[in-house]
């Protein structure tokens, strides 16, 4: 049974994420210290909150360094959700320019929308999955909806684009780069579609184990 380690850096609601993985039968633990991260098999970086505060928390607690060792050196799989995905990128302009972890190519910038289209992008939107990967997204119906709540998105990425949505234009909403994956929507708050996707993520992580 997979154990999922949810990084707790003081920003927001871990309960929903833990709840979703537990529903799927995974064990979950919360990591607040570098030690706990250093033994993680599969990492999830959730996040609701403001970018600069989040990066500061990660730095100040030593979690950033521990994550670097586990993700970049040890190449354990990590999934960033919403703000978590954005933190994995190179930088963000939310509340002023701030460097990110830099493990996903691209920068986080305001979603480019024409005038009249409000921000945040909040609600359920249909997502187009590009990447034909049986383990991740095959169980999803066509045009499956996921829940979004964000004003910023990953731009200029060279990572594999897994999925996009349409909000005032095409927006990249799921990417993968080696063992690093990011989802801009909230799979833990997207009912059955989200749960199916997380099942796909667990399947991928299990395949990764066997390699």
């Amino acid at each position, binding site marked *: 049974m997979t154990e999922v380690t949810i990084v707790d850096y003081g920003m*927001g*609601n871990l*309960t*929903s994420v833990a*709840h*979703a993985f537990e*529903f*799927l039968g995974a064990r979950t633990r919360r990591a607040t210290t570098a030690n706990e991260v250093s033994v993680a098999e599969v990492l999830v970086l959730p996040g*609701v*909150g*403001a970018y600069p*505060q989040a990066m500061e928390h990660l730095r100040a607690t030593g979690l950033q360094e521990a994550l670097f060792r586990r993700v970049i050196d040890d190449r354990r799989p990590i999934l960033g959700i919403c*703000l978590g995905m954005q933190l994995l990128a190179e930088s963000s302009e*939310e*509340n002023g320019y701030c460097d990110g972890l830099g493990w996903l190519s691209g920068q986080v910038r305001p979603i480019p929308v024409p005038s009249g289209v*409000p921000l*945040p*992008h*909040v*609600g*359920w*939107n*249909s997502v187009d999955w590009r990447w034909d990967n049986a383990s991740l997204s095959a*169980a999803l*119906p066509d045009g*499956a*909806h996921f*829940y*979004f*709540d*964000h*004003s910023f998105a990953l731009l200029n990425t060279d990572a594999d684009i897994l999925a996009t949505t*349409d*909000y005032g234009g095409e927006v990249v909403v799921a990417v993968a780069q080696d063992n690093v994956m990011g989802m801009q929507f*909230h799979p*833990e*708050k*997207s*009912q*059955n*579609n*989200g*749960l*199916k996707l997380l*099942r796909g993520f667990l399947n991928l992580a299990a395949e990764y184990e066997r390699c």
Partner: protein
Amino acid sequence: MLKQRLIASIIVKDGFAVQSFGFRRFLPIGSPAIAAEHFNRWSADEIFLLDISASREQRGPDIDLIAAVAAHTFVPLTYAGGIRSVADAVTAIKGGADKVAVNTAALNNPTILRQLAERLGSQCVVAAIDARRDQDGAARAFGAGGTQASGQFVEDVARAGGALGAGEILVNSIDCDGARNGFDLQLLSDIAAAVDLPIIAMGGAGMPEHLVAVLRLPGISAVAIGNLLHHTEHSLLKMRAAVLKAGIDLRHETYSDYRTHPIDDFGRLRMYPGEELSALQFSYHAEEAI
């Protein structure tokens, strides 16, 4: 395409889920957690949990209540009631809420919205406005469950909320609350014209056509439904089917599809004609294992 949302409201008074009538009379329904379980199963797009006792009891969020409701929801949960500070909001989020809505505290001290946005992010902050019209017809904002007159016009409060970093505006009509006569469409139009934020409409749902009228207004992103969802099995699913049939763009991802079932104006199922009933065949759908 982004869809509009049907939000299920759970109003809690003294620990009970209640129906609310004009913010003054309340009918007990039962367990908030069971209501949440039903609404989650019936495909709510979001759940809005409003604790109307918190302000009166001068306390912050009830973590046990939030946790009990969050345990049943795989959709976003917005919590409102007694949020007086950033610490209160963080408590609610850690308890299981995904967003917080603030009304009274923001009327007394609008900068709390900026503080919340800086700590939690704008996308987590809903500026909630309870509106009542006075004799001259102007709509003003009230705090403390309709008992505290701020004197401010709702458009001004909405504009300020947006400028201070709220991500969404929730507009609740005290006059229409529980009356089942429809929403205050003029109020919603006025606020939509004043701000550039997604707006959630609340207060007055009595029939599916009320929901359709609201969702047809420009700028309305979601409608929050309270009283109407109780007492009826699959209530929200039937509402969703009726609104979809009227051409509104909503998410539809459920096996319980009432779109082909005859529904009356009040959202109640009509009985199939005899010949159709005789011709019905039943097939078993196992619960989907994810």
